[in-house]
């Protein structure tokens, strides 16, 4: 499969150390969907103003075509913070569950295939 035409990005904040792990997981998820060599952009969110504009609820946020693909269930406030994810086994994690990430990615990219 060709790389996705939609921009795949990680929105990240420098105060949180999880973006490298998130990038590795995201590349693995893209590979599992056959989207090899899809470029993954890093967008740094470093001001409260930009966090509010993007409704950035924490780092890392995975976005496709400018939209958070894992918006979650809670209406969390925009903030420069690390994002809280929950694994499918219930554990709290600084990165999304790989299965949740792959499914959300597949759903988000289906509009662009």
């Amino acid at each position, binding site marked *: 499969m060709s790389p996705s035409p939609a921009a795949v990005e990680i929105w990240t904040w420098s*105060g949180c150390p999880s973006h490298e792990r998130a990038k590795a997981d995201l590349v693995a998820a893209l590979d599992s969907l056959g989207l090899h060599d899809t470029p993954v952009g890093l967008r740094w969110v470093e001001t409260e103003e930009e966090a509010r504009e993007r409704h950035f609820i924490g780092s890392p946020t995975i976005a496709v075509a400018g939209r958070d693909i894992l918006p979650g269930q809670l209406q*969390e*406030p925009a*903030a420069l*913070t690390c994002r*809280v994810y929950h694994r499918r086994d219930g554990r*709290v994690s*600084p990165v999304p569950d790989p299965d949740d990430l792959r499914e959300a990615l597949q759903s988000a990219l289906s509009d662009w295939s």
Partner: protein
Amino acid sequence: MTYTPGDIVFPFTLPRVDGGELTVDPRINAATVVVFTANHCPYALAWHDRLDAVARDYADRGVPVIQISANDQARQPLDSREASAERVAKGHFSGPYLHDESQELARAFGAEKTPDVYVIDGTGRLAYHGAPDDDHESEDARAHYVRNALDQILAGQPVLVPLTEAVGCSIKWREDAPLTIGTAQA
């Protein structure tokens, strides 16, 4: 000034998130664990149960585990004192949970992350500073850096690993925070 292993940690007093104040004097305990934490940090939450287990396991050996929220609630409303009190009411903490609104204590300790863990021996000297253990994702890790430090202190032995790198969310500092902070003192 910030504390490094070997430094004397001065007593301090802070409000409890659920009311009242607590004075912590490490010299009256066999050892004392101080944890700078947060309500909405995935690293702090991932390690929370393991650190709370330390609080339970060492309580009858004269070791209090003091957790402290120092984040600026204006920057992260989920770290408000009220949100912290809710967690205490739900029984999430086996030890005291304090609120460092001025952030002076966090600065005096040199805390930068959540969680950032300090183990102080019975003479009041900082014996360990760093992460709870080496893997926030593994329940098997059991906060072993902290447990090892405590076991060595309680056995009258030197702490073999006094410093590790704290891993977690950056503390959210107040924008109006003063540039220089003195030593915290009760």
